[in-house]
């Protein structure tokens, strides 16, 4: 397993926030500044698009092995997320969004364990923020379309079945929840998980490198321990990557569902 970021020389490379701000490769200082993480994102995007475009182009009535796997993934999002939360009827118009989001996030998350890439595309706040903004626009517009602007605001900010004076307390909280906290938590949860995963992986494998090549005597055996921990963390990171993609689309579906239902 290659190191998340190797400096080549000896000494212990501690993981740090600087890992997420690698030196620019192209167009430094402009809005187009291109660095290692952008390249990782591009590779992940091309990979996932390639998988789906190939599957769609070769789609047959009787699916082959490859098409079966892709369809299984699509079915997972459609049945386990969209239809489970939104119901069969409402799920139809949101399935495409949820499917795209799920596989995009999955691809960006899993680059964290791909040798050579070793960085989640979602570990930098920009991408989670845009994804959350997309979900935000979708659940607000779905709510307004379903209930009208007034109906949506009334249902969101003044939940029914509460004595009127409670609105003094409830309405600001609901406002914060619907308009700020939901998208913010969507973005930060995803980013923080990927940042933490990356730091853990780098810590384990940097320590392994250090113990094996720089330490002497008995200390070398610690390398085996940290390597085992790194291996376990890699598996865990794959799990977290899939889990966070799932959580992101489940919450998006839940927010859409809360917006379009008149009472909640």
């Amino acid at each position, binding site marked *: 397993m290659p190191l998340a970021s190797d400096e080549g020389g000896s000494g212990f490379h501690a993981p*740090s926030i600087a890992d997420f701000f690698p030196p620019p490769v192209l167009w430094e200082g402009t809005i187009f500044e291109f660095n290692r993480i952008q390249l990782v*994102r591009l590779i992940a995007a091309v990979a*996932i*698009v390639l998988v789906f475009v190939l599957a769609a182009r070769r789609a047959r*009535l009787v*699916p082959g092995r490859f098409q079966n796997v892709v369809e299984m993934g699509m079915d997972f999002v459609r049945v386990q997320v969209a239809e489970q939360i939104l119901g069969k009827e409402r799920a139809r118009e949101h399935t*495409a969004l949820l499917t*795209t989001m799920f596989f*995009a996030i999955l*691809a960006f998350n899993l680059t964290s364990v791909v040798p050579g890439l070793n960085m989640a595309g979602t570990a930098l706040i920009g991408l989670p923020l845009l994804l959350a903004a997309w979900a935000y626009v979708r659940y607000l517009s779905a709510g307004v379309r379903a209930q009208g602007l007034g109906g949506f605001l009334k249902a969101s900010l003044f939940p029914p079945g509460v004595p009127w004076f409670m609105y003094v307390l409830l309405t600001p909280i609901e406002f914060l929840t619907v308009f700020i906290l939901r998208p913010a938590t969507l973005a930060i949860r995803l980013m923080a998980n990927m940042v933490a995963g990356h730091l853990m992986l780098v810590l384990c494998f940097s320590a392994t490198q250090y113990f094996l090549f720089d330490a002497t005597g008995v200390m070398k055996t610690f390398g085996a321990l940290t390597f085992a921990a790194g291996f376990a963390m890699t598996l865990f990171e794959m799990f977290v990557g899939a889990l966070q993609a799932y959580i992101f689309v489940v919450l998006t579906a839940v927010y859409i569902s809360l917006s379009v239902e008149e009472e909640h």
Partner: protein
Amino acid sequence: MSAAAITAAVVTAAESSEEIKGIQLLLPEAYDIFWSAVVLLLIAIPFFKFALPALQKVLDERTAKIEGGLAKAEQAQAEAAAALDEYHQQLAEARAEAARIREDARAEGGQIVAELRTRAQDEAARIAETAQRQIEAERQQAAVQLRTDVGALATELASKIVGESLEDEVRRSRVVDRFLDELEATTATSGKGA
């Protein structure tokens, strides 16, 4: 090698990245947003415009095909059931027909036997009657013959015995009749006595 060395290394690493603050993790750079938008569009456009509709079309097609197949299978099953019913019905009809024919044959056979029996009985009766009648006729003939012969014999015998010719027809006839009457009376008495 000691913990101090590790600490020193960590400190060095931390110092080298001192200009990067933790808050920067939460505040996106403009280039970050730009490239995020680029990769998201790179994924979203092919997904929405091509991949998902194409795959969905195939899925819908498959659903339609399976539903059509199921309907066809159901229809085939119904047809098979109808054919089986018809077959059973025909079989039952054929059985009934066979039973009827057998019954008819049995009845006809019985009738033929009865008819033959009747005819045979009639024939037997007729033959018996004819025989009876023939016997009666022969008996009568014999009786007449006997009476004539006995008369002639008796007359001849009597004339021989009394020496008297009973030439006279009337007389002879009277004598014979008396003799026969006597003979019959004797026979009757002896029959009664017996």
